[in-house]
Structure formats: structure tokens, C-alpha cells
């Protein structure tokens, strides 16, 4: 049996969906499931949420002193202290996991498999290279612990179903003080999270201005959708960077992805190719986005936004 430890990602109170996706990968490696470690304040609800996810055998709750609990330099030595009991340590391949897990792997003297997109066997995995233009299968030799980050877009989140015990654990590790959390600046929004939304509406340079994006927000609110953007729209200052979809932004896999005025640069397409249905609306019939779109409409995007809004009434 493969003993797996999944490192939970949470925002202080809630477990991120990336954790549920990571668990799906864990269950494919070992059907019996995995332990999940939650580093959080003692009163956080994150551990309780994690304990309900299907495939969780046990939640290890390692109490953290402060909100600064997501700093890689602080978490890594604590994970290393837990590592000896496991054959495989997984974290989501989000900015959280990508920051943290290589630090853990190096402290353990191990190689890491980044962006696991498919499980071939308990020790062999597929991962994308060259911005997804090639897929490589790698194998971790027998006797080596598997350390991997899991590409969220490649795995559906597990649902609730377990009632795993929560075990408070104390680890003895010297924690550094050389890294300090100052603040998180986030454009807080009531809309669904880009990485977990079933429907995503996305705007490109064709939207023309920050003001015009409001039309997309209004349609998104009507549809219960999240809103994303191309790098061009972010660089033009129409929207904040956390809305960027693509290789250098967020890689997402919604059921429906509607791209308005996005031409479809390779780096953008890398971020959406696991979406269920891709819709492209663009006035340029030659735009590369149409090559990957399941449904394409050549036309004015503002007219389209208006009409979709009316016809969904």
C-alpha cells in the first residue's frame, strides 16, 4: 500500500478546491486514500472541511501560531518532520504548492514531479513540458519517495463523503524567522472563484477598457460565472493580474469557457485546453482561438454579450 500525505491548501478558514483535486490524484495512486495535513490556527474550520473529503483517511492538524501559515520557509521543515511516515507527498500545483513543495523536496534530497496531469502507476506520471506542447512520462524509481505537485485542471475535485478523524499533531522542527508575511492584496469579489467555477467568461484586448469589462461582469453574475482575462487585457490594465488565464496566469478547467475578444495566443490556450466546452466570440474570423474552440461565433462581442444576456432571460 502506498502511504500518501496530501498538503491541504486553504485560505485560513476554507479548504481550497485544489486540495479536493489533489485528493482525486491521490486516490488514483492509492485507492485506500490518503492522509491530509492542515497547517492552520487551532480554531480554523479548514481541518473539519478537509476531514469530509472523499478519500481522506486521517487529517493531521498542525497548529500554527499566526496567519503567516502559508510561508514555504516556515511550512517546509514541518512537512519534512512528517515525511518519514509516507511513500508519497502531494500538493496542489497552485502558487501555494509550487512555492512550497520544491523546498520540501530539496530538504529531503529528492526530485520533484511538477504538474502531474495523469497517473500511469503508483510511481509513473504524465506531466506537460514546453507549455503543454509535449507530454512526458516520468517514473520515480523504487525506494525513492514520490514528491509531486498535482495539476488542478487535470483532476476533478472529490466530493464530500468521508468522516475522517482529526488528529492534532505537534512537530518538532526549527522554524526560521527570516521570512515574514506582510499582507495579501486581493481584489475581493463575490463572483465564483476562477479555478473552481463551472462557467468562466473571459475577456481579451477586444473588450477595449476596464469600463467595458463591466458588461462581462453583469453577464457573469446573471450566469453564475467567474470572470477571467487574457494576458493582453491584464497588461492593458483592464483587470487585475489575478484574473489572468494562461500559462503564466491560472490554468483552469471549467465545464464552459466563453472567450470574448480573445485572439488565442498559445500561452492563453495552454491555460484552457482542459475546459469542457470552449466558446470563442471574436470579430476576426482568422483568430487562432477558433482552432481550439468547440463553438465559434464571428461577430461583435458587445452585441453578443447583450444578446446572450437577453436570450438567457
Amino acid at each position, binding site marked *: 500500500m502506498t502511504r500518501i500525505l496530501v498538503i491541504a491548501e486553504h485560505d485560513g478558514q476554507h479548504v481550497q478546491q485544489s486540495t479536493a483535486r489533489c485528493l482525486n490524484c491521490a486516490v488514483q495512486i492509492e485507492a485506500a486514500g490518503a492522509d491530509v495535513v492542515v497547517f492552520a490556527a487551532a480554531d480554523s474550520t479548514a481541518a473539519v472541511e478537509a476531514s469530509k473529503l472523499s478519500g481522506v483517511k486521517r487529517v493531521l492538524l498542525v497548529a500554527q501560531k499566526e496567519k503567516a501559515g502559508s510561508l514555504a520557509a516556515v511550512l517546509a521543515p514541518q512537512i519534512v518532520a512528517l515525511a518519514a511516515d509516507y511513500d508519497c507527498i502531494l500538493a496542489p500545483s497552485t502558487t501555494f504548492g509550487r512555492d512550497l513543495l520544491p523546498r520540501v523536496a530539496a*530538504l529531503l534530497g529528492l526530485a520533484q514531479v511538477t504538474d502531474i496531469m495523469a497517473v500511469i502507476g503508483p510511481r509513473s506520471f504524465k506531466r506537460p513540458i514546453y507549455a503543454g506542447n509535449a507530454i512526458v512520462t516520468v517514473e520515480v524509481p523504487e525506494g525513492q519517495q514520490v514528491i509531486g505537485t498535482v495539476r488542478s485542471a487535470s483532476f476533478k475535485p472529490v466530493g464530500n463523503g468521508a468522516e475522517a478523524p482529526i488528529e492534532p499533531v505537534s512537530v518538532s522542527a526549527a522554524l526560521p524567522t*527570516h521570512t515574514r508575511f*506582510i499582507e495579501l492584496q486581493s481584489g475581493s469579489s463575490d463572483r465564483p472563484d476562477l479555478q473552481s467555477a463551472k*462557467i468562466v467568461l473571459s475577456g481579451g484586448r477586444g473588450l477595449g477598457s476596464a469600463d467595458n469589462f463591466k458588461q462581462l461582469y453583469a453577464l457573469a453574475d446573471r450566469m453564475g460565472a467567474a470572470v477571467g482575462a487574457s494576458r493582453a487585457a491584464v497588461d492593458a490594465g483592464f483587470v487585475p493580474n489575478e484574473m489572468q488565464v494562461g500559462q503564466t496566469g491560472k490554468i483552469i478547467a471549467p465545464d464552459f469557457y466563453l472567450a470574448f475578444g480573445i485572439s488565442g495566443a498559445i500561452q492563453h490556450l495552454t491555460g484552457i485546453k482542459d475546459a469542457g466546452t470552449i466558446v470563442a*466570440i471574436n470579430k476576426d474570423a482568422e483568430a487562432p482561438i477558433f482552432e481550439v474552440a468547440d463553438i465559434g461565433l464571428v461577430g461583435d462581442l458587445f452585441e453578443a454579450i447583450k444578446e446572450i444576456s437577453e436570450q438567457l432571460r
Partner: protein
Amino acid sequence: MHKIIVCLKRVVDYNVRIRVKPDGSGVITEGLKMSINPFDEIALEEALRIREQGAVDEIIAVSIGPDDCQQQLRTALAMGADRAILVQTGTELEPLGAARSLLKIVEREQPELVLLGKQAIDDDCSQTGQMLAALWGRPQATFASKVEIRDQSVRVTREVDAGLEVIEVDLPAVITTDLRLNEPRYVKLPDIMKAKKKPIETLPLESLGADTAVKLRTLRHETPAPRGKGIMVKDVAELIGALRERGLSA
């Protein structure tokens, strides 16, 4: 600060679309245009800007790879790095091996800051900076979009999924750079001429004494499966019909 080390990887240029070898043994890179990994170029640009603020004396560009990496190091010197070190090897290192090798250079040079890209655009691993910081026992500030040098520390704004995270790390530290940190300068002809006089030190990988043994087995490469051919609709009514057929319930 006395020194910043910038780590540069030679990669297939980002404008080139690579192809997988027919036998699946790798990716065809022969004859392709090679460049400095774009994220590393941003790291170098940031180092140059820090020097222009008067906050550092010397910038050292370091690369690991074959002799051909000298081309990219020459570009770095033309951009403004003071000297360069090439760790020579004909074999491709994993991030851990690269980090262990870089640590040897860091121990020798004792920089206050190491800057490198958040990932290389060939293997897309996004590990080397974090691994170097871990092995060095120093802080890491990954995915940086703003870097403010203070007296004994540096304040870094990081591009994270939830927005922008600001952290403060004591020096020495490792910073990995994200796309929006800066726009690298163009190299001017006189700078290319001047760069020819700047020194590139070459060190055989073996001389560093770092453990660079490969730990993962690469079984095969393949081309990703293309998405099925889509349909074109003529108007929004048809679009919504097609979406409903596919289960859109909004």
C-alpha cells in the same frame, strides 16, 4: 550589497514551436533558435535596475550547460552583467542537481541575493530557485512582481493565485521572478562590443563536487492529443442552442 548572482538557463526560444521526436525519445531541439529563458532575462534586468539604484556593486551571471551557453552569457554581459561563470556539462541536470551546483557557486561567491526566473520554459519545473534557497538555508521569495531592496532585507510582492502577497525576507535570499516584474532592455551594439572584453570563467561540472545524479526516469515523450474539431454558429440564438445541447443550464 556587494554581489547579486543571476542564474540563466539556455532554452529553445519562446517563439519556436517544438516537436516531439517520432520515436518519443525526446523533443527535437537541433538547429532551433536558443535564447536566455525569458523569466531569467527578467531576473537579470531586475539585477541591473538594482545596480542602477546604487544598491549593489557587482552582478555575476551563471549558467549550467554545454559550451554553447556562452552565447547566452555573452548576451547577459552585453545587457550589463559584470562577469559570467559557465558550469560546463553535456548532460541535462534535474532541478535538484542544478540547485546543488548553484549552491557551490553561491558558497564561493557569497552573494547577498540570487535572482532567477520562476520557471524555465522548456521543462516547466519551477523548482530550482526554491531548492537552492532550501539547500542554502535562506529565504525564498517566488513569483516576484515587485522587489524593494531595504537595508538588511528585501520586500517582495508575489503573484499568487489569490492576488498579490507581500513578504519581507532577510538577506541573503533567493528571489524568483514573474513576468510582470519588468521589461528587459534591448542590447545595443556598443554594449555587445564591450561585452567581448568581459570575462567568462568556465568550470567543469565535476570540479564543483556537487551530487548531480539524475533521480527520475524519463520513459517517453508524446504530442498532446488535439481537441476535436469545433463548429461555427451564425448567431447568438444558435450559440445558446449549442450550449444548451452540451448541458449549459444557466
